[in-house]
């Protein structure tokens, strides 16, 4: 979609993004961060990529996701400074010879800390135990985006490396 100009850019996040860095685990969908284009009226335009996929026969939707090759794909507009930074700094990784743009491990962890659901915190622990993050970079992101409290709460839960 990026190649044909249908999507300005994208960054795979969520559980599938995490699998690029840590051991595989069960997940049901693919989260893709996108930057929304805002019309001059101030209204938000349709999610980029959605129409392109529909035109190519991907018309099945599941909740807020469009099903692509049996995977519900959810396009998530970046909604805060942390997500925007994650989107802008995503890295190109190789998947079976195809370049894919994936959120950096440190941003994934910061986003999960910020979201704070139990499953997110469990995955944060996986990143740390599997030495998948650069601690200095992570702490810098945590500090700059004001999620020190979430980090402290997480550490107080008895997590240990």
């Amino acid at each position, binding site marked *: 979609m990026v190649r044909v100009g249908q999507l300005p850019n994208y960054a795979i996040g969520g559980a599938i993004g995490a*699998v*690029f860095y840590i051991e*595989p*685990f*069960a*997940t049901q969908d693919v989260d893709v961060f996108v930057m929304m284009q805002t019309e001059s009226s101030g209204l938000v335009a349709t999610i980029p990529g959605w129409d392109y996929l529909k035109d190519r026969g991907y018309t099945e939707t599941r909740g807020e996701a469009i099903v692509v090759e049996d995977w519900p794909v959810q396009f998530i507009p970046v909604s805060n400074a942390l997500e925007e930074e994650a989107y802008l700094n995503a890295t190109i990784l190789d*998947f*079976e010879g195809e370049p894919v743009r994936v959120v950096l491990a440190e941003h994934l962890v910061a986003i999960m800390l910020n979201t704070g659901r139990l499953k997110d915190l469990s995955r944060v622990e*996986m990143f740390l*135990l599997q030495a998948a993050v650069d601690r200095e970079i992570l702490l810098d992101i945590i500090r700059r985006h004001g999620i020190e409290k979430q980090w402290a709460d997480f550490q107080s839960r008895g997590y240990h490396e």
Partner: protein
Amino acid sequence: MSDDKPNQDSDPIEIYQRKQSHRKQEARRPVSEKMATVVRLRDFERALENIRKANRAKRATKEITIRIKTR
């Protein structure tokens, strides 16, 4: 045998450390292999969906009796 030192197979710390070491190795596998595992897990979860639903329904209607053994 009265050995104070727990053997490798029963020492929980040792088991935990081995498990974590194995998970680290899993994390370093090629992404395509890991994605294949994710797909298998996803399909397995989908296969379990109806079973879980039926189980939840049975529990809700008390069709399943749970007896917790106490001393």
